[in-house]
């Protein structure tokens, strides 16, 4: 059974003695008006103000159609309007609407920019305070846990370790290997020009172990695990799971934040070691192909070129980066408000902040360790 097509809306102008009549017919509904709205509106606008409107032939009228006419009439029923009773209620609703409009969001003023800068400053200040509060809460919970041995979130920590450490190994290896190859290739081109081929070991060893390895892995982990942590805690905020935990008397800090922080701190040192090792391997392969430097020579020269202190510096950097990434991720996760916009904004903020923090802290490390582990 196919439905009959509905009569299209139309306007017919009639000259009735001296007065002009606008006779409307068809369905004045959104569905039928919308396809040809522009033409109809132009037609309506051209009709003179003193004309008599006849709506007797209108088969259906919804509030969209009524509003269209209402606006054309200047928000009142025109004199001499012919309106069948069945359409009365639609216009009654419109006249009940009255004047006035919806509240409008204020537009952009010149001073808003200044205000925005101020707001940004205070927001940053609030973030710093909130971050310190989170760290403080964690320390308090940590000392509390020292007394309550049974409540250690061991299982959660282990699960998180697997998720952020073990599962991150393939991507770390891939990126590390490629960076190693590229770095080695580019350095080899320069070194060969000076006949200083053998110094490739020094460049790669010191550069990767001390600097590039930890930062590279930290950036990867911030993108991979930091965002995941923020999103996970954020969604748990949205679905009130965190409130449910708190209502059961379980501290969300102990059960959610602490395992993530501990796991990432513990996982980052071995992950850095793994990433640096693969990057060095990539560099070694590339050096072998480019400069004919044998693997034997490379491996033997490495300990001489790079004092062991550098490895300690590199791995401790990794652990500190892990701690910071997890703290930042959890902080922004807990700040999520129950809507999708806030979730995406906080996840972005989490990744951007943790990468910035990693690079800032790396600079601090560089200054603090400037006299340690460098060959003289």
């Amino acid at each position, binding site marked *: 059974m196919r439905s009959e097509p509905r009569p299209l809306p139309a306007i017919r102008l009639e000259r009735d003695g001296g007065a002009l009549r606008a006779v409307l017919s068809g369905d004045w509904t959104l*569905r039928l008006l*919308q396809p040809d*709205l522009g033409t109809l509106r132009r037609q309506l606008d051209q009709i003179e103000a003193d004309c008599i409107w006849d709506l007797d032939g209108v088969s259906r009228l919804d*509030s969209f159609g009524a*509003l269209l006419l209402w*606006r054309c009439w200047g928000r009142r029923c025109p004199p001499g309007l012919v309106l069948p009773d069945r359409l009365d209620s639609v216009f009654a609703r419109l006249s009940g*609407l009255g004047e006035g409009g*919806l509240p409008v969001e204020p537009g952009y003023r010149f001073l808003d920019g200044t205000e925005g800068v101020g707001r940004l400053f205070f927001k940053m200040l609030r973030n710093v305070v909130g971050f310190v509060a989170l760290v403080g809460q964690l320390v308090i919970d940590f000392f509390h846990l020292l007394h309550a041995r049974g409540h250690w979130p061991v299982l959660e920590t282990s699960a998180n370790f697997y998720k952020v450490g073990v599962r991150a190994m393939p991507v770390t290896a891939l990126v590390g290997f490629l960076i190693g190859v590229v770095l080695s290739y580019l350095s080899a081109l320069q070194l060969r020009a000076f006949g200083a081929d053998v110094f490739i070991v020094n460049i790669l060893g010191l550069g990767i172990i001390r600097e590039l390895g930890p930062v590279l892995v930290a950036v990867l982990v911030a993108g991979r695990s930091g965002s995941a942590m923020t999103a996970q805690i954020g969604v748990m905020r949205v679905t009130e799971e965190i409130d449910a935990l708190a209502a059961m008397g379980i501290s969300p800090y102990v059960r959610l934040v602490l395992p993530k922080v501990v796991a990432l701190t513990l996982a980052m040192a071995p992950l850095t070691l793994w990433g640096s090792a693969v990057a060095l391997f990539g560099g070694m392969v590339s050096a072998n192909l480019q400069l004919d430097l044998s693997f034997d020579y490379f491996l033997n020269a490495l300990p001489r070129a790079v004092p062991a202190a550098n490895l300690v510096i590199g791995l401790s950097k990794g652990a500190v980066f892990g701690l910071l990434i997890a703290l930042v991720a959890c902080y922004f996760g807990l700040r999520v408000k*129950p*809507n999708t916009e806030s979730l995406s904004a906080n996840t972005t903020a989490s990744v951007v902040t943790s990468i910035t923090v990693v690079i800032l802290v790396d600079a601090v490390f560089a200054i603090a360790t400037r006299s340690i582990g460098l060959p003289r």
Partner: protein
Amino acid sequence: MSDQPVQVRGLETRFGQTWVHRGIDLAVPAGEVVALVGGSGSGKTTLLRQMVGLLRPTAGEVSLFGEPLFAGSRAEQLDRRRRFGMLFQHGALFSALNVFANVAFPLREIGITDEAMLQDLVRLKLAMVELEADVALRMPAELSGGMVKRVALARALALEPELLLLDEPTAGLDPDRSSGFVRLIRALHQALGLTVVLVTHDLDTLAALASRVAVLAEGRILAFGPLDEIMNVQDPFIERFFHSDRALAALARGRGIG
């Protein structure tokens, strides 16, 4: 328009090994308020979701406005979809948009870009669901449960639908709010001449709103008709569902909502 906005023929649904529907035939007459009732897990909401094409039945067919739901070109299907509005159980407001943008969203989608017209339309829809104009700039997260439902109803009405589908319209509302919402839906039904299909397990709502009741049990429609007829059907499920003391009290309460 056909006289039966919703027709369901021989509909069967299976999830894994369990049959949810085993042959459902239902025709909703125009202008009626049809309530789908049944116990938990009887597939009421599933049937409603199949009516709007969110789920595809295993077998059988749903027709809206006399044409199969998935018949015709994309444009025809889209046109069919724009003729009904659906109110989801939890409102399903777009949480990133404020109330004004939520209600204006479907209107903007169909190409109404005149801001002044949009303002008037949204104001009208908000007035229809008895909300003050000053909620327009609030975000969904800042609304109470009852207000979320009202805004969602305003959004469902934005495209002037001929058919309105309501999934548990009064679930999660306190008794006062829920009778207010029932009154609102009934007033809109009378004013706009809508056809309404609702899913509910709330017998107050059922008695207050429904002009016909379809009872779903054991994967089929046990009975379909006005509430008084349904009450007289001899069936153990209907006996349990409608004739317990609690049920009779709820039905009496619902009839009292005026």
